[in-house]
């Protein structure tokens, strides 16, 4: 495991560098709910814990895949107020879930250092939005650090614990896809893991009733004044002088592109690189702006730095012109890249435009991600399509099953966020006369599905809620959840059954089916559709990627003599292992996972197991 390397230097993923920083800083508790691009932070903690657990050693820290980000933050907050060092990581939208706890936690503060990692996803590589979580730092009054490289990531994590303890305030640590998922060399220090217990000292100021909250808010603002002094002195805020009196102010991933372009074009400029971006080092910014005739701010998404810098310039009566969003190719949407930064800096510094690389006359076919061969979701979707009436609405949720949006299945109609399938299903059921069948995965069910189901049952909303129980958190890399047998430490855990939980929630009509049996699945959905009220179908079969080799071994093939070329396998079922070869339909044996569901789809019995 590179992250446990004892060498002087290792090539680490940004997310691994977070973990290396934490274990060199003697982390005690790490919690999460997985989400791309943050997932490898938690998975690396889990891997380390399981590594030691498997050897009968105590890992020296506790790690938990919590049911959701809010629970993860609350758990770690309790550890941190008891004096332990804690880290909670999540993707950007995870902080929305945790925000209720987050906002008031800032009032209360912590004792042991607590780092809250938010991994933002400019360009929505694997997310439902590209919100800029830097505003959470302002919103909640959290000191914020933003690294550019894996080395800086590790260094900043270690320092973030110190800052957090100095201020008794959790620190927001903002990554983006291009800092989480880049690899680079990292200098390694000593790993300091040792199991500790904290002690909770009671204090009435930790019970945030209104009277206490009114006392805590000014205290928080005082802490942020101290934080500004830290920001002024922080080694992560620095100026690089390449001559001239034109300034570039940047942070995070865009700094890497700025430096590359400045080097390549030998641009005369001064670069203010901000690593601690909340609170901003005001004096340092004033000094930089004073020494600059013109400044360009290079930041992704919202004009977070730009607007603050403009406010500072106005307050200080500086006549420096500050450029940012709207200049050149700098926009408020999507991530920046080398071309965006280079073209805009060329314009700003008066270089001639770079020669455009011409488009190709031929184009590669789009290759979006698809549900895998053998994916049980495909079987569930196919079965429902056979029995659901025309016009049925399919609210969906966050997970692999959203890939069912693509043809030929087209089984996803509406999506907001984790757990939204149930609430919206009930709303559609009331607002229309259409049938409603909603979908969520097992991990999503535990994360945010329960309150919606309680609401549905209590109001007797007429909809079918499907839990696609594939026994894992598949999309983010197969993490365990409350319905699985083991926890993130590799210890045996109490396994909750979805069907038992929904029974406890008062659902009157519950079906449990194996989707790989299409006929039985169709019958179950027919019964559920006919039931007047809230019904739940648990469609249970393991993700094809976690099945043992013995199950997925071998493949199916098409008997060309029997095949009538009805195309149902390709045009209705849509398993990616099927392809056309001239006028024949074939199954790619390297892709086939041998689930055999296609044999139930084929009306002419032309699909058979391939002989070895």
């Amino acid at each position, binding site marked *: 495991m590179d992250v446990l390397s004892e060498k002087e230097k290792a090539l680490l993923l940004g997310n691994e560098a977070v973990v290396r920083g934490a274990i060199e800083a003697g982390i005690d508790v790490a919690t999460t709910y997985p989400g791309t691009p943050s997932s490898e932070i938690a998975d690396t903690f889990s891997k380390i814990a399981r590594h030691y657990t498997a050897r009968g050693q105590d890992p020296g820290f506790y790690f938990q895949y919590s049911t959701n980000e809010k629970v993860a933050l609350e758990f770690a907050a309790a550890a941190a107020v008891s004096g332990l060092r804690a880290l909670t990581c999540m993707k950007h939208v995870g902080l929305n879930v945790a925000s209720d706890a987050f906002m008031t936690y800032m009032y209360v503060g912590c004792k042991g250092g607590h780092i809250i990692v938010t991994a933002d996803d400019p360009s929505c590589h694997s997310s439902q939005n590209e919100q800029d979580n830097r505003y959470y730092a302002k919103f909640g009054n959290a000191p914020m650090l933003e690294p550019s490289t894996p080395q800086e990531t590790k260094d900043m994590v270690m320092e973030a614990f110190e800052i957090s303890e100095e201020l008794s305030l959790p620190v927001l640590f903002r990554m983006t896809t*291009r800092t989480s998922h880049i690899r680079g060399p990292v200098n390694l220090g000593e790993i300091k893991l040792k199991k500790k217990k904290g002690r909770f000292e009671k204090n009435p100021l930790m019970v945030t009733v209104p009277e206490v909250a009114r006392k805590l808010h000014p205290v928080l603002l005082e802490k942020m004044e101290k934080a500004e002094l830290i920001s002024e002195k922080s080694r992560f805020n620095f100026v690089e002088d390449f001559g001239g009196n034109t300034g570039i102010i940047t942070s995070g991933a865009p700094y890497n592109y700025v430096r590359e372009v400045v080097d390549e074009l030998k641009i005369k400029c001064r670069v203010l690189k901000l690593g601690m971006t909340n609170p901003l080092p005001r004096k340092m910014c004033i000094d930089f702006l004073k020494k600059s005739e013109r400044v360009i701010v290079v930041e992704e998404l919202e004009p977070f730095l730009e607007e603050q810098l403009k406010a500072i310039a106005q307050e200080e009566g500086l006549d420096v012109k500050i450029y940012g969003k709207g200049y050149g190719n700098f926009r408020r949407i999507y991530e920046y890249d080398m*071309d965006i930064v280079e073209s805009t800096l060329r314009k700003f510094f008066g270089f001639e435009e770079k020669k455009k690389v011409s488009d190709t006359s031929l184009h*590669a076919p789009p290759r979006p991600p698809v549900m895998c061969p053998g994916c049980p979701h495909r079987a569930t979707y196919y079965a429902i399509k056979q029995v659901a009436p025309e016009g049925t609405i399919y609210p969906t949720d966050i997970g692999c099953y959203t*890939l069912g949006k693509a043809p030929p299945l087209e089984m996803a109609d509406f999506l907001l966020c984790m757990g939204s399938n149930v609430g919206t299903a009930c709303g559609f059921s009331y607002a229309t006369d259409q049938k409603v069948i909603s979908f969520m995965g097992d991990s999503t069910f535990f994360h945010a599905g329960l309150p919606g189901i309680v609401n549905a049952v209590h109001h007797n909303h007429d909809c079918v809620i499907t839990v696609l129980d594939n026994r894992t958190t598949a999309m983010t890399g197969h993490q365990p959840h409350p319905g699985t047998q083991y926890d993130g430490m590799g210890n045996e855990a109490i396994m909750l059954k979805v069907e038992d939980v929904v029974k406890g929630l008062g659902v009157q009509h519950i079906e449990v089916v194996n989707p790989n049996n299409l006929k039985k699945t169709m019958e179950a959905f027919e019964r559920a559709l006919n039931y007047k009220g809230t019904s739940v179908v648990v469609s249970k079969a393991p993700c094809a990627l976690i099945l043992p080799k013995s199950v997925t071994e071998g493949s199916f093939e098409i008997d060309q003599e029997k095949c009538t070329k009805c195309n149902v396998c390709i045009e209705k079922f849509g398993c*990616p292992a099927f392809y056309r070869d001239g006028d024949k339909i074939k199954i790619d044996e390297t892709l086939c996972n041998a689930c055999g569901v296609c044999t139930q789809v084929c009306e002419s019995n032309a699909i058979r197991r391939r002989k070895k």
Partner: protein
Amino acid sequence: MKIRMIFAGVGGQGVLTEANILAKAFLSAGEKALTSEVHGMAQRGGSVVCTVCAGDVHSPLIADGGADAIVSMEPTEALRYIKKLKEGGTVITDVNPVIPPNVSLGQNEYPDLESVFKEISNRGKLIKIDALEIAKRAGNAITKNIVMLGALSGMEILPIDREKILQVVRENVPAKYVEMNERAFNMGYEAVRD
């Protein structure tokens, strides 16, 4: 020294492993190396791209016309990123197409292979290899990524020697598959030397 490369392919073909091995080889040769990867959704049969930038570099991302080489596990995936290639850069691609389901459904067309190769040749030096066939001969189709890495090392564009890369290959594959991967690497190397 600066060298920038694109590794492309389809989810499941081992693109990230291939790129990481090379980045580690740079590091063990005393050079700085940066990579940028795509995770998550891309694993499910989607297009996967990973960069490796080494030497005196800051950015793990590559500008259009900035890549010294493109190494692709699938012909149209090389085409997809061809705008990244430097004028006269090198493209090494496996010749075996992986047809996306949307093509089987008739929504998109998979371009004629000869035209794909022609388009690539117009932009740089094209090396085609049947890495799948070589990988099978080496012992398993799964070693295709290592065949491609061997081919890249045979092209004399890398400033690190073959043995250094091979050493990192050995360190990064399961112990029982070391020999097979070594074979795959060497066969890829030889394939472009002929």
